[in-house]
């Protein structure tokens, strides 16, 4: 079974090449067909391999499929080789199956767009690169895929290139991740230099053997790779690119910026977890960074006008949860949250795209409303997705994965309780901001009248994803419910036994379930009191909410009227500090660092350019000066 695995990334690659070469001459129908067919092949093969895996797991729970030798240096060699174990199997399944659904969705969503075949060429190329990334057995091959997805992301974010802003967003996402990638490349070189191999499994074995616990080399390698991962996954301090990347078409946001590419950072850490386990300090950094990410991103999501930006910030925050889990060594919890998140976030993005399709590409939630009856399919899809994102108990998949993370946070020593508290608070916020969107978009009076209708290629992916988003959580349930641990026991050969022994106090579990409900209630309360609308902020200002300055008296009045005390509390506790935060973040201090590096390069460019004046005499003079310099070095140095 394993020896056909190369077809899985190769099929989309071939699809992409065909589309690139002949797409311009093909009809849209044919382009869409080829583009989707290639993913169908990958998805079917992935499922077949997975089924086969369950029936007859390979020896040692992994497969290595070597294709050919890629690099051979005296010190080390690198092979083009695929490595399949439960972790990469799950990643592969998610990428190909969700990728397929999004491709199907796109064939209808992108109809009528210029560059239809180009879109599918890029999207296929992306899937191929992503599959290469997860299947790679070797850090260098992984890096190839890593760069490949980066380039595809760049191309797809800038897909509508005639708008200057899109080009800017594409460039920004590329520059920011690229800076992180350089750190990662340095890390890979460091590891290869120190350990003599970049093949992941031997490398990890060697690292565990040679390096002491908490050693400086391990810390440096892990930290450098982590920077690469943080960049790709849009975690603090690299989070700035993801919201801007929403300039791309919505299916792209669903596939790349929600389900797959942005989780590559998490995958990297999981793949290399024995290395990270060597250095608890790096793990602590991950956890603290994740908390910062979760809280800032969730707060920001709370005041966005643009539905896609809300989802983008929520993606940042949810990946923050995955990193938080990684930070306390709860590898399988992170994986599980990745799985559920991929499903429900793809669902949410596709729903948002479906809404926009019918509302003349309107993305402002304050210009929507009352869509519950008009777009009932999308309403249910979005609601299920939101429930899952908010982690509403029992009915949603997200609840199980988030609960798993919370439990492992509580049980982890040291900072664990504090992390748990922060994560719990984040859960409240999550529910609040997503249900803010739900209420504003689907309830109330109709503000923009929908037009058109949905075809089957829109509805089927939504329905399938919605079913998955509410049921996939049953793979892993807490002991007191059903004692189902299919997921973690599947991953056990790789990641070891999960730390969650059911010794949790009941109130901790209960808190985890109540927090989202509380969030929904807050969201509803503030919706009813009209708080959201009043604090909507100026139109078109993406990350600029919370303009409302309220007097004490008014706050008290609204407290009485709405019957919820949270409004005032919320304003004082969250909005005011948040306004302060927004003021800082508006100027994007982290962004400024990246941009100043670019500006410095430009400065040098300008200065050097002036030397190319075009005059022969001047050139001769410069040549003479250069010769002088060399002679001086030779004679006097």
């Amino acid at each position, binding site marked *: 079974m394993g020896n056909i695995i190369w077809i899985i990334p190769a099929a989309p690659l071939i699809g992409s090449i065909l589309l690139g070469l002949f797409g311009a001459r093909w009809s849209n129908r044919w382009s869409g067909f080829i583009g989707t067919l290639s993913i169908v092949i990958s998805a079917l093969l992935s499922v077949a391999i997975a089924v086969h895996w369950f029936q007859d797991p390979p020896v040692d729970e992994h497969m290595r499929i070597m294709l050919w030798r890629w690099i051979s240096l005296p010190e080390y060699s690198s092979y083009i080789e695929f490595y399949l174990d439960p972790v990469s199997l799950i990643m592969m399944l998610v990428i190909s199956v969700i990728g397929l659904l999004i491709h199907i969705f796109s064939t209808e969503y992108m109809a009528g767009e210029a560059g239809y075949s180009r879109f599918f060429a890029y999207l296929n190329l992306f899937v191929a690169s992503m599959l290469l990334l997860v299947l790679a057995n070797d850090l260098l091959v992984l890096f190839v895929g890593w760069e490949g997805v980066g380039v595809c992301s760049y191309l797809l974010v800038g897909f509508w290139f005639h708008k200057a802003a899109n080009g800017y967003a594409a460039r920004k996402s590329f520059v920011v991740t690229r800076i992180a990638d350089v750190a990662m490349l340095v890390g890979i070189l460091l590891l290869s230099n120190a350990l003599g191999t970049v093949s992941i499994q031997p490398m990890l074995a060697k690292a565990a053997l040679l390096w002491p616990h908490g050693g400086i080399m391990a810390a440096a390698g892990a930290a450098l790779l982590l920077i690469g991962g943080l960049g790709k996954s849009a975690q603090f301090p690299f989070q700035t690119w993801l919201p801007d990347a929403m300039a791309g078409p919505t299916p792209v946001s669903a596939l790349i910026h929600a389900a797959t590419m942005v989780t590559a950072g998490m995958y990297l850490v999981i793949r290399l977890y024995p290395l990270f386990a060597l250095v608890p300090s790096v793990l602590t950094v991950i956890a603290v960074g994740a908390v910062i990410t979760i809280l800032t991103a969730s707060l920001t999501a709370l005041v966005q006008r643009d539905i896609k930006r809300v989802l983008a910030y929520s993606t940042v925050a949810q990946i923050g949860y995955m990193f938080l889990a990684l930070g306390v060594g709860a590898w399988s919890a992170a994986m599980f949250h990745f799985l559920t998140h991929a499903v429900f976030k793809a669902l949410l993005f596709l729903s948002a795209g479906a809404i926009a399709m019918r509302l003349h590409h309107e993305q402002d939630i304050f210009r929507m409303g009352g869509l519950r009856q008009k777009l009932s399919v999308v309403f249910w899809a979005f609601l299920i997705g939101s429930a899952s994102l908010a982690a509403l108990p029992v009915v949603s998949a997200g609840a199980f994965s988030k609960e798993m993370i919370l439990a492992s946070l509580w049980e982890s020593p040291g900072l664990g309780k504090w992390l748990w508290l922060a994560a719990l608070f984040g859960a409240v916020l999550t529910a609040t901001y997503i249900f803010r969107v739900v209420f504003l978009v689907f309830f109330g009076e109709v503000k923009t009248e929908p037009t058109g209708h949905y075809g089957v290629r829109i509805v089927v992916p939504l329905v399938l994803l919605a079913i998955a988003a509410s049921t996939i959580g049953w793979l892993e349930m807490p002991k007191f419910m059903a004692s189902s641990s299919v997921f973690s026991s599947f991953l056990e050969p790789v990641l070891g036994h999960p730390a969650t022994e059911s010794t949790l106090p009941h109130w901790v579990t209960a808190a985890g379930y109540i927090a989202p409900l509380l969030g929904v209630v807050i969201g509803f309360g503030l919706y009813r009191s009209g708080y959201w609308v009043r604090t909507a902020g100026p139109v078109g200002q993406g990350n600029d909410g919370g303009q409302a300055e309220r007097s004490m008296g008014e706050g008290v009045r609204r407290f009485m009227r709405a019957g919820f005390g949270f409004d005032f509390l919320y304003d004082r506790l969250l909005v005011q500090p948040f306004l302060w935060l927004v003021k800082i973040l508006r100027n994007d201090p982290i962004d400024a660092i990246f941009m100043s590096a670019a500006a410095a390069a430009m400065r040098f460019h300008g200065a050097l*350019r*002036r030397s*190319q*004046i*075009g*005059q*022969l*005499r001047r050139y*001769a*003079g410069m040549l*003479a000066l250069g010769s002088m310099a060399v002679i001086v070095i030779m004679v006097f140095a």
Partner: protein
Amino acid sequence: MINLSWQAPASLAIILFALGLIGLITRRNLIFVILSIEVMLNAVALLFIVAGMRWGHPDGQVMFIFILNLAGGELALGLVLLLRLRARITTLDGDSANILRES
């Protein structure tokens, strides 16, 4: 008795070379630029003669002949380029031949 050492003629060659270099860097007129290159090559040729004198080997003169070879070829190409460029560079001002530059 001849007591000429090699330092004096070698210095002469270096001085001539330097003069050529000065001409090359300072003159605008392309005729003079090419003339300066000839001066430099000529000076180097002299240096090889001096080397031949010092060591008593004919290699110096062989190199001299090759340098003449080069000087002739380069001169022919340079002058024919000047003829071609004449239409554009009316005063043969090297500074005005700057279509190719960073705009």
